[in-house]
């Protein structure tokens, strides 16, 4: 019997076969709707009608002249940047703590990861209770500790509502970022840390002059993920404030949903949703370049 070449010997064919399912998934469920959204943003299509007329840049012109859109754009930027700054600080601190050896460390790591595992909608509902105008535990705690007089209407005041959204977004991304930073810390050679100790560097000097610079590429990746997750998230804002009070806390995804689906103006909704894309691409490219440039000693 002559040994025959089976499919397992043909790496080109095998590769194509194994790649096909994921490729099909991405094209059908991500690529097609995406292309369709871009197309819609140049149309005057509405929900409930099959009419499809070319609108050119009219949708974009409309939203750019709309103060609610501009506010949502600003909110998106504030929420994304604010939550990521918070995340980087918290994740770096938490990673330092979780790196140390102490009793119950495994349990602490498990608890830390929970927010990541909880469905966003469920968590957001829990947070609406925490920020409740009457029963807010935050207010109660601050009052009981004697730190606050008066009362904070978390979701009723535009500035506080935005802060609440930032807190929830940070809370959601923070475990993931911590795990990434922990992995980054573990990849710093022990000898380098010990060299810094012997060289006389204390904790802060080691953190800021040795560990953080070496962590930068890893942190950049964590931030990149965080930015994309936060900037494109609909659930948190939708459940927490619904864009209110008086459309002051909309971010682009919630506004797109309100205009495009609830308001049935598919064209404008698509334009709002797609508007974010160029920014996210710029952020992604910038982050990846940063990560590459700061890779150990490269210049």
């Amino acid at each position, binding site marked *: 019997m002559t040994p025959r070449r089976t499919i397992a010997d043909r790496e080109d064919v095998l590769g194509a076969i194994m790649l096909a399912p994921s490729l099909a998934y991405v094209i059908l469920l991500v690529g097609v709707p995406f292309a369709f959204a871009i197309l819609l943003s140049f149309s005057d299509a509405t929900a409930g009608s099959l009419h499809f007329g070319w609108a050119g840049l009219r949708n974009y012109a409309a939203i750019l002249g709309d103060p609610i859109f501009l506010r949502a754009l600003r909110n998106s930027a504030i929420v994304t940047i604010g939550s990521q700054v918070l995340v980087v600080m918290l994740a770096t601190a938490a990673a330092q703590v979780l790196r140390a050896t102490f009793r119950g460390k495994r349990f602490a790591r498990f608890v830390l990861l929970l927010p990541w595992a909880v469905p966003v909608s469920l968590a957001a509902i829990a947070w609406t209770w925490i920020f409740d105008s009457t029963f807010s535990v935050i207010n109660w705690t601050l009052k009981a500790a004697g730190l606050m007089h008066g009362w904070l209407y978390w979701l009723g005041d535009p500035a506080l509502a935005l802060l609440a959204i930032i807190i929830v977004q940070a809370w959601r991304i923070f475990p993931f970022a911590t795990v990434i930073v922990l992995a980054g810390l573990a990849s710093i*050679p022990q*000898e*380098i840390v*010990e*060299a*810094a*100790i*012997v*060289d*006389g*560097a*204390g904790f802060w*000097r080691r953190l800021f*002059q*040795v560990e953080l*610079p*070496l962590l930068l590429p890893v942190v950049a990746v964590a931030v990149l993920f965080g930015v994309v997750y936060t900037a494109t998230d609909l659930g948190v804002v939708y459940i927490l404030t619904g864009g209110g009070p008086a459309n002051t806390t909309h971010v682009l995804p919630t506004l797109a949903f309100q205009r495009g689906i609830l308001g049935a103006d598919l064209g404008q909704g698509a334009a709002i949703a797609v508007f974010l894309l160029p920014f996210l691409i710029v952020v992604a490219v910038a982050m990846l370049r940063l990560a590459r440039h*700061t890779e*150990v*000693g*490269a*210049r």
Partner: protein
Amino acid sequence: MAGIEIRNLRKHFGDLQAVDGVNLSIRDGEFLVLLGSSGSGKTTLLRMIAGLERPTSGEIYIGDQRVDGDVPPRARGIAMVFQSYALYPHRTVFQNIAFPLEASRVPRKQIDEKVRWAAELFSITRYLDRYPRQLSGGERQRVALCRALVRDPKVFLLDEPLANLDAKLRNTARDDLKRFQRQIQTTTVYVTHDQVEAMGLGDRIVVMEHGKVRQIGTPQEVYEDPVDTFVATFVGQPPMNLLETRDPSLPARTLLGFRPEHFLPRSVFGPTEDTRTFRFAVRRVEYLGSDRYVYGSVVETGTAPAEVTIIAKLPATIALPIPEGETHEFAVPRRALRYFDADTGLKRTP
């Protein structure tokens, strides 16, 4: 400048006794080498001196200061060079060397002077603006030494600093290191598993095994007069030959020890020289250029050849042909013979 005094030092990791009761007195300005295989406890001992590891019990003094307790590494007056050099990859050579000075808040101007002085000393001035990854292994090693030097340490601790260099570079690096240490005359503790490094560098060598010190002595003492069979076979390449003999003039269970370079054809020695002769069944001859290694076993009259492989190292100056598979007359000068107890392994006086 300071010596180091170590008293009854122990370090246990769980059940493992990494360092098991070490006493050591290192003189001011001495170059001391800790020699041992991996797991002998030599690195743990060094790390305890550095303050990176806390002893389970025992005392360490650097100069007059007792440091085994809570004295952090930076307060011990030590500088350490790691096997991987542990340079900061995101900092230039200049910034690497300046780091310990910045950490002790030396003024900018002084840092600049000091770094340039050290870089000059190791001729790496033209690399000051480069990053570690742009340097060769030898250059990195010199940067690591520079970084250690600028702190003006009382004690240098070196953890296998030559292990990552290729063999050719290692010779010159060893020479540089020794010259440099002679010049600055700072007490140095050097960890290595390489006995050639140990012999070449050390004023004294500490041979360690299983967390215990087996022998302390000058390279010559350790090589020529090993205290037990472990040191005899650990130091020297090829190791000392150990042969159990049925010589009636010696106590029972005595091992004869002799270095391969002393085990030569009988005809090489003069007729008046006091030697002990062996019948040597040659199995194989290895030609190594400057030497010939002759492998075989010693045949004693009336018995089958012993199973222990004996090695003779013949310098190229001995041109005598030695056919394989034949038995030859070999001899060892009596002054080069050593005796060990076969049961305890300890040295025995005949």
